[in-house]
C-alpha cells in the first residue's frame, strides 16, 4: 500500500527501487575453485586466482550460471542467450584484481516481476558479479588487515524498477524475493551472514508526477533497517525540499544506532569505473537445451503451490499463504497431509507447529517432530483414539521426547474412552446421583449439560470421548 509523506504544502509519494545482492548458493566461487564456507579463518578460502596472482585467469563456474538462470526463470525474467562479463575498474585494498568482474551492458537475465499484495514489482535485471574481500580495521591498532575469503564469491545483483511506494512495500518485496531465492535454493537468504544485502534507491515526488532525484542507501543488512532507512530518507528528502533545498544524487549510509542516513559520497566524486568486456572471458553463450533443462527441473513455484493448496486441498487463503511462505514449510505440510484430511493437517502445521517453532526461534528444518509423525497424530485424532485436547498433550510430548504419537499414547495410557457401554454406566450412575439437577435440566435449564459432561470427564480422568459423552447425556436427559 502506498504511504504518503506529509509536506509543508501537500503530500509526497515514495518511489523506491531496490538493488539486492544475493550470494549464489554454490560450494565454489564464481571464477575459481576456491570454497565459500562462511566463518572460516581469514584467508583460508582463497585461491591463486582470488588473490590475483600474476598470470592467473578466471574460469566461469557452471553451477553459478545455472543458479542465475534458475533464479531468472523463478521471477519470470528473460534469459539471455548471449551475455558478457565486464571489468569494473577501481582500486580498493580488498579488491585484489583492481577490478570487479561483473555484467554491465549485457546481463544474463532481463525483466520479470515479483508480486506483493496490491502490486506487481517489475525486475529490471539480474546479473552475476564477484564479491570483494573484507577490510578488517579492528584487529590491529595501526593497520588495516585484508581477508580475501569472500573475494570472488558469486553474487546475483537483482535490480527492481522504482515501483515500490512505501517502506512497508520495500520490506514486503525483499521478504518475497528472499523467500523465492530460498525456495529455488539459489541463495540461502541469510542477511546476518551477509548472503543477502540490499541497497535502496529512494526518491520522493508529488503523487503521479515524474520521478525525483534519488539517493542510494548502501548495504542494508536487515529488513528492519531497510524499512527504517527508507522511512527516514523519505522524511529527510521532504524536509530538504520544504526548506527550499534540492535533493542531491548521492550515496548514503544508514546508521542503525541513530536511525538516520548520512551522505557518503556525492555524484561529483563518483568513480569512473572504466567498464570494458573482460578479455580473459569469452562471452557467455547459453543454448536452448541448457535453459530448458533448468526450466524442466524447476520446483513448483510458491504462487502455483499456494493456488493448488486452496483449490485442490481446500485450504483457506490464510493457511495457504502461511504454508507457502517457505518451500520447506510447504514440503513439510504436504508430507504431513499426505493420505489424510489436508485441512486438519494444515491446522496442526499452521497452528501448533509454526507457533511452537516461532516461540523457540527454530526453522522448520529443525522441528523435532517429523512430518510423517505429525500426520500420525492427525490420524489418531481423526479415528477417535485421541480427543483434540489430548492431541495437544501428545504433540507437546512428541516435541519434548522425539517419540512417536502411538508410543506416547501407549506409555501414558492416553487412549480416549469410546466404549459406549462403560460410558453409559457412568452416565446412568451420575444421573441417579444428581437426580435434582437432571430434573432441572428436563425443566428447561439445558445449560446444565456442561456440568454433566464435566462430571463424566472428571470421573474418567479426561479420557472419555467428549462427543460420545455429549450424545449419551442428551439421549438420557431428553428421553
Amino acid at each position, binding site marked *: 500500500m502506498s504511504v504518503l509523506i506529509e509536506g509543508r504544502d501537500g503530500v509526497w509519494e515514495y518511489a523506491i527501487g531496490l538493488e539486492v545482492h544475493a550470494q549464489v548458493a554454490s560450494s565454489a566461487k564464481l571464477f575459481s575453485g576456491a570454497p565459500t564456507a562462511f566463518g572460516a579463518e581469514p584467508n583460508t578460502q582463497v585461491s591463486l586466482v582470488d588473490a590475483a596472482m600474476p598470470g592467473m*585467469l578466471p574460469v566461469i563456474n557452471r553451477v553459478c550460471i545455472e543458479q542465475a538462470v534458475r533464479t531468472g526463470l523463478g521471477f519470470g525474467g528473460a534469459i539471455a542467450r548471449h551475455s558478457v562479463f565486464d571489468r569494473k575498474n577501481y582500486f580498493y585494498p580488498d579488491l585484489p584484481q583492481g577490478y570487479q568482474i561483473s555484467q554491465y551492458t549485457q546481463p544474463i537475465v532481463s525483466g520479470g516481476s515479483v508480486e506483493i499484495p496490491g502490486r506487481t514489482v517489475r525486475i529490471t535485471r539480474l546479473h552475476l558479479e564477484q564479491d570483494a574481500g573484507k577490510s578488517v580495521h579492528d584487529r590491529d591498532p595501526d593497520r588495516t588487515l585484508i581477508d580475501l575469503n569472500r573475494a570472488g564469491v558469486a553474487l546475483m545483483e537483482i535490480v527492481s524498477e522504482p515501483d515500490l511506494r512505501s517502506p512497508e512495500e520495500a520490506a514486503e518485496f525483499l521478504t518475497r524475493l528472499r523467500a523465492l531465492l530460498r525456495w529455488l535454493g539459489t541463495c540461502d537468504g541469510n542477511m546476518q551472514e551477509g548472503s543477502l544485502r540490499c541497497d535502496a534507491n529512494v526518491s520522493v515526488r508529488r503523487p503521479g508526477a515524474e520521478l525525483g532525484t534519488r539517493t542510494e542507501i548502501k548495504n542494508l543488512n536487515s529488513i528492519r533497517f531497510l524499512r527504517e532507512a527508507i522511512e527516514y530518507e523519505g522524511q529527510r528528502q521532504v524536509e530538504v525540499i520544504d526548506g527550499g533545498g534540492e535533493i542531491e544524487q548521492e550515496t548514503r549510509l544508514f546508521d542503525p544506532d541513530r536511525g538516520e542516513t548520512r551522505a557518503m559520497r556525492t555524484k561529483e566524486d563518483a568513480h569512473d569505473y572504466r567498464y570494458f568486456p573482460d578479455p580473459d572471458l569469452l562471452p557467455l553463450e547459453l543454448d536452448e537445451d541448457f535453459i530448458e533443462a533448468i526450466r524442466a527441473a524447476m520446483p513448483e513455484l510458491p504462487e502455483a503451490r499456494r493456488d493448488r493448496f486452496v483449490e485442490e486441498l481446500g485450504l483457506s487463503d490464510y493457511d495457504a499463504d502461511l504454508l507457502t511462505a517457505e518451500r520447506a514449510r510447504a514440503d513439510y505440510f504436504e508430507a504431513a497431509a499426505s493420505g489424510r484430511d489436508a485441512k486438519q493437517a494444515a491446522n496442526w502445521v499452521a497452528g501448533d507447529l509454526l507457533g511452537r517453532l516461532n516461540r523457540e526461534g527454530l526453522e522448520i528444518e529443525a522441528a523435532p517432530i517429523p512430518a510423517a509423525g505429525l500426520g500420525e497424530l492427525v490420524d489418531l485424532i481423526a479415528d477417535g483414539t485421541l480427543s483434540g485436547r489430548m492431541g495437544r498433550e501428545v504433540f507437546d510430548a512428541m516435541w519434548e521426547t522425539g517419540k512417536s504419537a502411538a508410543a506416547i499414547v501407549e506409555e501414558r495410557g492416553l487412549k480416549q474412552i469410546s466404549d459406549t457401554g462403560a460410558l453409559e454406566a457412568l452416565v446412568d450412575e451420575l444421573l441417579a446421583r444428581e437426580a435434582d439437577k437432571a430434573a432441572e435440566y428436563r425443566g428447561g435449564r439445558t445449560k446444565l449439560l456442561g456440568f454433566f459432561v464435566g462430571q463424566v470427564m472428571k470421573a474418567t480422568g479426561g479420557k472419555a470421548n467428549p462427543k460420545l459423552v455429549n450424545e449419551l447425556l442428551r439421549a438420557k436427559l431428553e428421553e
Partner: protein
Amino acid sequence: MRDLGLADIRAGLAEGAFSAVELVEDRLAALEAAGELNAVVTPMPDRALEAARAADARRAAREPALPLDGVPVAVKDLFCTEGVRTTASSAMLGGFVPPYESTVTANLIGAGAVLAAKTNLDEFAMGSSTATSHFGPAVNPWKAKDDPRPRAPGGSSGGSAALVAASVVPAALGTDTGGSIRQPAAFCGIVGLKPTYGRCSRWGIVAFASSLDQAGPMTRSVRDAAIMLAAMAGHDPKDSTSAREPVPDFEAALGGGVKGLRIGVPREYRVDGMPEELDALWREGAAWLEEAGAEIVDISLPHTHYALPAYYIVAPAEASSNLARYDGVRYGLRSPAEVVEEQYARTRRAGFGAEVRRRVLIGTYVLSAGYYDAYYTKAQRVRRLIARDFEQAFGKVDAVLTPTAPTAAFPLGEKMDDPIAMYLNDVFTVPASLAGLPAVSLPAGLDGEGLPLGLQLIGRPFDEETVFRTAAALEAAAGFDAEPEFVR
C-alpha cells in the same frame, strides 16, 4: 654443441654421442660467457642440471624418449616458474617468486625440456627494444659492419632472441602481443612464431594485453619451432580463451612444399620510407616461393593503415586494467605510506618504469567515460575490420608474405625518446595480432650493413601447418647461414 638443433640433440642423446648433463653443462657455461648480452635476468643452473640428470636417468632406465629430452630452453621472464623469481623485468616484481608453474613451461618440462634461464624483456613486455627493462637493455649479438655501436635485439622478447641468435641455447620461449616474438626474431636473425590466439595457454604468463598475448617458440630453424610449438600447445581448462583445437604434428607438415599454394602479397604493407633493400628482399622472397611452385597473388588488406593506432588503444586499455593488481597490498613491491591511496601512488611510481606508466595512462584515458566510444569502441570496430580483411584474403590465398619489421636492428638507445617511432616497429606485426592469426618471422637475408632482415608469413587461424610448410620452403630457398659477430 653450440650449433645443435632440436633434432640433432634428439639424435645425439639417442646415439649416446653426449649426455643431457654434458650438453646442459656446456650450455650453462656458454650462458655465463654471454653476460655482455645482458640477456638473462635469472639463471637457473641448479634446476637445469637436475632436469638434465633426470633426462639421463630416464634414458638409462630405457624409458621412451620425450620430445624435448635434455633440450636447454631459455624462458622469457614473463612466464611464472615455480620457486624461481619471475620479474617481468620490472622493479614491481623484482623479488616475486611464484608458487606455481605456467602451463606452457609445465608442458615443456613434461616434454623433457631443461629450463636454463629466465630472459630479459621490455618491462611487462611493453616495448620493441628490451630497453625498457628494469635490469638494463639486452644487447643484440649482431653488429653492423662499419658501426661498432651495440644494437637493440628488438623486443619485447629480446633476451630470448639474443640467446638463440648467439647460439647459447637452441630454443627459447617468447610471448607476442603486437610483435614481441617476430620483431626480435627478425632483428636477431632467427625464427620466431606467434601461434594462433588460443593455441597456447596464457595461464601463468604475466598478462600484458589479454586478448592479444600469445606464447611462442624462438629457434634457429623452422623445424625447431615446429617441434617446440607441438610441446607447448594444447587446450588448457584453466584458460577460458585457450582453444579446444587438436594439436597436429607440426614437424610432419614441414616437408609438404608449396606447390599449388597461393601466397598473397598485400600492397598496403609497402609503406613510405621503407628501405629499398627490405622491399627487394620481400620481392625476392615472393620469387623464391614462386620458383618452389607457389602462385603469388597481389592482395589488398585495406584496413592495414588503421591497425597500429587500434592496437595502441586496445593493448594499453587492457594493460591498464591487467596491471591494476600491482598495488603493493599482497605481493611484489610496496612503498608504505600512511593512507592507502598514497601507498598505491608511491608503490606504482617506484615499481613501474616510464613506458609502463605511459601505457597505463593511455589505457586509463581511452577507457574513461566520455572517451570510451571514441577510442575503445572504435578500435574494436577497426579490429573486426582487420580480421575481415584477412578472412576475405584467405578466400583467395593460403598464406600472406610481408616483411617482419620496417628496419633492421637499430642502435641501442635509439628511439627511446620518441615513443611513436618505437611503436612504428610493430607496423607489420600488429595486424596479425589484432586478427589473432598465426605468423612467423624467419631470417631471409642481410642488409647492406650486414644486419639480418626478416620476412613474415601469416596464416589462417589454427593453420600453423601451412605457415610452417611455407616457412620451411622459404628457409630452404633463402639459405640464411650468416652468423653474428658474437658467435664468430
